[in-house]
């Protein structure tokens, strides 16, 4: 059988411990139903998990479940924990101002100790956003199955891994069994052709993709990002793309590994070495989608037509290119009108306002979407020699302690602080505002994060998603600008 397969199908099949068709309970269930329900019967396979990332917010109830049932963590050596979601990004040596957050961090520390799970704790230089530390350590590798109690786990797909977010009950299941029972996903090809223009980033590409497929377009699917424009992206840019797969509704997103992937991985702490590297390389090269393999859905975008994007609404598909305007509800079909009107009311925007006339109060540069070194370099390039507008408060939050260290070695911290940006410690920060980094009601923020949902960065806060360069340019101007016009 030499059936052509997609990379997602290959990885899936290599990790099936048990096919549900063999399951006694399942057979009993089907018999009970007289086998009447074939159409809706999902192929739920028991899937082995190669890496389980854990953080403080979605794991306490899972560890408690293990404790109550007298269970252990089956493979602590395939599990990695950190604290990221609610850690403060300043004054860490002082008492945490939020006792509930402090407690949750403490519980993570206790659980890691009790169950023998490695933890990058708050003062560990390797601490950071859970989706930044895996790739940084070389723990994220092609062909792996990776899960985490966090929807942005799809980030790791950039390496050609099958990586997806799960809930707390599933976290407990993986801790106890190192497996998950999951329905087989459908496959979707998103091809970005041609070459991206100057000043157009991975963030703009993924916002363009979500704008096209919609926030529900990927439901039930694993997206494979393909095409010339994707191939030319660096690993960090691919991570930005895969990161937001969930914002298009997809279960996961991935990019087939290539020389760019291998170059990035070589020499990282947990990457294979010597002969093992050669053997791993041979395996990784077997992963890309076979010629002739088919997808359940295919979408094509012209990379050359993509411009810097800005979201205007309250979901990541509600976006427009920077030279555009806030949409007019009158221009859309009646059934869509109410949704747009609701979004504009929440965002306090008037129809037909040019994007570049929207004034902002806050800027957040960071997150698992755009908190890596290349993102900080892009923002620093724009910030250098300029100053944040007097009406704006701006912060830069590196994705990890190691990103912070690297940035400081390159002098980026000096550029940012001279330009009036706050330079912080690593964490999720104002992406979801679980720590003191939060918008006050009515504030408008240019953010490099991934979600512009109502209240995401604080109740009543208004979020516009943009690339790091666009965010830095907006910080300086006090309103959105086309970053291509300020680039030299």
């Amino acid at each position, binding site marked *: 059988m030499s059936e052509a397969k997609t990379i997602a199908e290959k990885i899936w099949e290599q990790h099936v411990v048990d096919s549900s068709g063999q399951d006694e309970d399942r057979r009993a269930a089907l018999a009970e139903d007289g086998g009447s329900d074939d159409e*809706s019967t999902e192929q739920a396979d028991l899937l082995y998990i190669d890496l389980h990332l854990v953080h403080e917010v979605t794991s306490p109830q899972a560890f408690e479940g293990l404790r109550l049932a007298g269970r252990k963590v089956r493979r602590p050596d*395939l599990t990695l924990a950190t604290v990221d979601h609610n850690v403060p990004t300043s004054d860490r040596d002082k008492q945490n101002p939020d006792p509930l957050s402090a407690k949750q961090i403490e519980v993570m520390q206790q659980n890691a100790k009790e169950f023998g799970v490695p933890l990058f704790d708050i003062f560990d230089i390797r601490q950071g956003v859970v989706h930044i530390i895996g790739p940084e350590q070389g723990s994220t590798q092609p062909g792996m199955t990776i899960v985490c109690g966090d929807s942005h786990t799809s980030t790791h797909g950039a390496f050609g891994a099958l990586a997806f977010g799960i809930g707390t009950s599933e976290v407990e299941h993986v801790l106890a069994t190192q497996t998950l029972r999951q329905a087989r996903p459908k496959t979707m090809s998103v091809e970005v052709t041609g070459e991206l223009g100057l000043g157009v980033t991975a963030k703009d590409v993924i916002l363009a993709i979500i704008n096209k497929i919609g926030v*529900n377009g990927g439901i039930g699917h694993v997206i494979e990002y393909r095409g010339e424009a994707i191939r030319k992206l660096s690993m960090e840019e691919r991570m930005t793309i895969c990161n937001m797969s969930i914002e298009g509704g997809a279960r996961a997103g991935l990019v087939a590994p290539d020389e760019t992937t291998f170059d990035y991985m070589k020499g990282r702490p947990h990457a294979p070495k010597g002969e093992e590297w050669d053997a791993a390389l041979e395996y990784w090269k077997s992963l890309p989608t076979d010629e002739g393999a088919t997808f359940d859905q295919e979408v094509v975008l012209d990379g050359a037509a993509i411009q810097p994007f800005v979201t205007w609404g309250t979901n990541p598909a509600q976006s427009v290119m920077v030279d555009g305007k806030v949409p007019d509800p009158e221009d859309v079909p009646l059934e869509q009108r109410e949704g747009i009107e609701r979004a504009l009311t929440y965002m306090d925007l008037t129809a037909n306002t040019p994007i570049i006339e929207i004034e902002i109060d806050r800027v957040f540069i960071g997150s698992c979407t755009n908190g890596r070194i290349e993102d900080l370099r892009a923002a620093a390039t724009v910030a250098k020699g300029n100053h944040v507008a007097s009406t704006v408060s701006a912060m830069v939050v590196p994705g990890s302690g190691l990103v912070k260290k690297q940035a400081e070695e390159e002098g980026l911290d000096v550029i940012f602080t001279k330009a009036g940006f706050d330079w912080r410690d690593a964490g999720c920060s104002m992406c979801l505002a679980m720590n003191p980094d939060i918008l006050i009601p009515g504030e408008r923020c240019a953010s490099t994060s991934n979600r512009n949902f109502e209240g995401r960065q604080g109740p009543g806060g208004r979020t516009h998603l943009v690339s790091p360069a666009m965010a830095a340019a907006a910080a300086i101007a006090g309103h959105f600008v086309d970053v291509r016009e300020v680039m030299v």
Partner: protein
Amino acid sequence: MKQVSTVRGKAIPLDRVNVDTDQIIPAKHLKRIERTGYGPFAFESWRQDADFVVNNPAYAGAKIMLTRDNFGSGSSREHAVWALEGLGIEALVGVSFADIFRNNSFQGGLLTIELPEADIDYLMARAEELPTSEVVVDLESQTVRTADGSWERHFDIDAYKKYRLEHGLDDISMTLEYGDDISAFEGQRSELKPITTDE
């Protein structure tokens, strides 16, 4: 897992698409380490609006929520399921559900029933017109019907999931029965795969 059979009760019509889990339970309430107590914070910000449907006393005690396309999108927080359960909701009947939310709901024994848009239109209109009218979600016969029996639709559910819900089976216990298979898989698993502990 909670055993589930039939859910009968009033239905709250939440007539919005793409309801994300940040709306169902805002992030600031995820700092607790318990599984319960999230009900008071469900839809916290929308509930500030007195006219929001969840505030309507006519729907007090409802066990069913009617939803639109892509309900539960965004964050993987299972707290969203716990918050809905805290509100007293035992079944969601909608056009479509986000993948992770659907999995989480299943884990909590919260039914996510998908019906075609026209059927949801009908149920929404009926619930708005007659808030106290009851709807029945019957897992055994895989039907959603109005309590007066005047309207009925079949829904699909994976047979295996249905079986687990009907028997209230614990997922982890079931998987642990495959312990030998998991060990066998680990035995033939490539040694090249990384570990997280220091070598």
